[in-house]
């Protein structure tokens, strides 16, 4: 065990590599490099090939037994029904992103700068709902929004309303659920980015003559733009294809992209249409993500214009 064949590499920062001799070296290295690439092989097999397949299948028609190129799957999607569904999904997810951002940013800012003593306990209590099974969240909101639920009982108890209101099965309940579920996804990245900064940076900005608003625009937002971007993507991307929340909270009245995909996949069993619709939705997502990314870069540049770093 004590073969001392150590080569120190003076002046270089490369790690000293373990030494194996001859055949042993060959066997180990070749075998291990194959094993070491396992995650990437898995990623290619179960991520890239399915994605490519998804893309190619949406252009292939095999109804007659032979494969041929077609765009008929797409042309049948270009009707007002589908376009309005796509627009609705974009609207829903953008609205969710915007509202969660408007709640998450002030919340993180206030809790970092006014309650930094309780930093750990606040992040722990943010993490618990984040990690709880999300169907349980939907389940829990039924108890609050039902006709005899908590909210109606409280409102009636204090005499705000005399008749129970219908909170469930409308756009309101979908929106509440979307905000509730995606809020921790927005808060956590922003919170953990802000957590890293010393509050003296902001004091310095105030000392140098910036007012609160300028400090917010020129210092705080540019510094935590990374967290904001992560939050926006973590909310926007999954909420775009959300289908369980609209299905359970909207009472079969609201159709979004995810619902259409699952409808074609499981009810109608028309794989071609489902795949084409999925490809289309992916294209829309990627496009919007690209624009958000560009927009955020421009926004930061505009905010920090004239600020020397």
């Amino acid at each position, binding site marked *: 065990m004590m073969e001392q064949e150590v080569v120190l590499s003076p002046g270089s920062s490369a790690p000293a590599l373990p030494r194996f001799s001859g055949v042993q070296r060959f066997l180990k290295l070749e075998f291990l490099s194959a094993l070491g690439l396992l995650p990437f092989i898995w990623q290619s097999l179960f991520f890239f090939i*399915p994605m490519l397949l998804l893309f190619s299948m949406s252009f292939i028609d095999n109804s007659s037994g032979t494969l041929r190129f077609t765009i008929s799957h797409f042309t049948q999607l270009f009707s007002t029904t589908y376009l309005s569904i796509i627009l609705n999904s974009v609207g829903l997810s953008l609205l969710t992103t915007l509202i969660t951002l408007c709640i998450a940013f002030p919340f993180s800012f206030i809790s970092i700068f006014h309650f930094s003593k309780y930093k750990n306990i606040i992040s722990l209590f943010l993490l618990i709902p984040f990690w709880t099974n999300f169907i349980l969240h939907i389940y829990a909101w039924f108890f609050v929004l039902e006709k005899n639920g908590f909210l109606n009982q409280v409102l009636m108890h204090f005499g705000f309303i005399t008749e129970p209101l219908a909170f469930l099965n409308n756009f309101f309940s979908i929106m509440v659920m979307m905000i509730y579920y995606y809020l921790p996804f927005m808060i956590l990245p922003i919170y953990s980015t802000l957590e890293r900064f010393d509050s003296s940076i902001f004091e310095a900005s105030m000392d140098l003559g910036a007012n609160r608003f300028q400090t917010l625009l020129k210092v705080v937002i540019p510094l935590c733009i990374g967290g904001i971007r992560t939050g926006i993507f973590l909310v926007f991307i999954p909420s775009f294809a959300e289908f369980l929340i609209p299905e*359970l909270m909207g009472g079969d009245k609201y159709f979004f992209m995810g619902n259409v995909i699952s409808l074609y996949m499981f009810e109608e069993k028309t794989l071609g249409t*489902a795949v084409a619709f999925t490809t289309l939705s992916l294209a829309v997502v990627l496009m919007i993500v690209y624009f958000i990314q560009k927009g955020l870069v421009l926004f930061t540049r505009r905010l920090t214009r004239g600020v020397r770093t």
Partner: protein
Amino acid sequence: MISHSTLKKLTSPLIVFSIFVFLYLPIIVLIVYSFNSRSFPAPWKTFTFEWYIALFAHGTLWISFFNSFIVAFASTFLCFFMSMCMLFFLFIGGKIEKQLSLFYLNLVIPEAVLAVGLLAYFSLLHIPLGIVTVIFSHVVIGLGFIVPALYARFVQIDPRLTEASYVLGASSLQTFNKVIFPLLKPVLLSTSLMIFMISFDDFILSYFCAGTSFQTLSLFLANSLRNGISPVVNALATILIIATGCVTSFIFISSRKHKTRVFAHD
């Protein structure tokens, strides 16, 4: 009348407090109703444990629970095993910087899109849908978390530590066991637990890849929600929320502890 300055002082605690009320109110109501002796639409009657007793007698629920457990355990194990292989490969001097870019797209592709792609792929290859396909799909998500995190931490390791270990007479295997692995243990542990929880809670991938005969806990819960509210599910939810709280606190405390230890070490 409240004066202007007290109002100003009160706003920030009030905002933080109301967000936490928003986040926790439904959970608390859910837990309270698991102890109600009458089923939900009826108001509060008396305190009872009968739903918890009924919970333990519920057959299909426990089958789906154990299915979820097996899926989560298997996908965590596979991710852990593959990332350990990758770690050893990195240790013997392998380079994976270029391959790492394979994982970039995981962040921007919605899970539902991946699920449709996987379902089409499995049906093309005639792989019967069931536990195996669910595990395979969860491993894809898990790898997207563990591989970049592990690589980022590995690159941070000071090369002088391994060198010192060799100088002091340790073999390669000893160096791996006693230097590299302990340094990466916290990140391995926390990401593994994360993968376990993601897999255990996952709905979308399981929904698409499970087929008709296999059911995980999330699928069971979604089905029972479609059929209406049952207090037995409340009892289960209470237990799950408490368990999640414990696991989250554990990950949280261990990661905080680790951070301080690293700084002290440096």
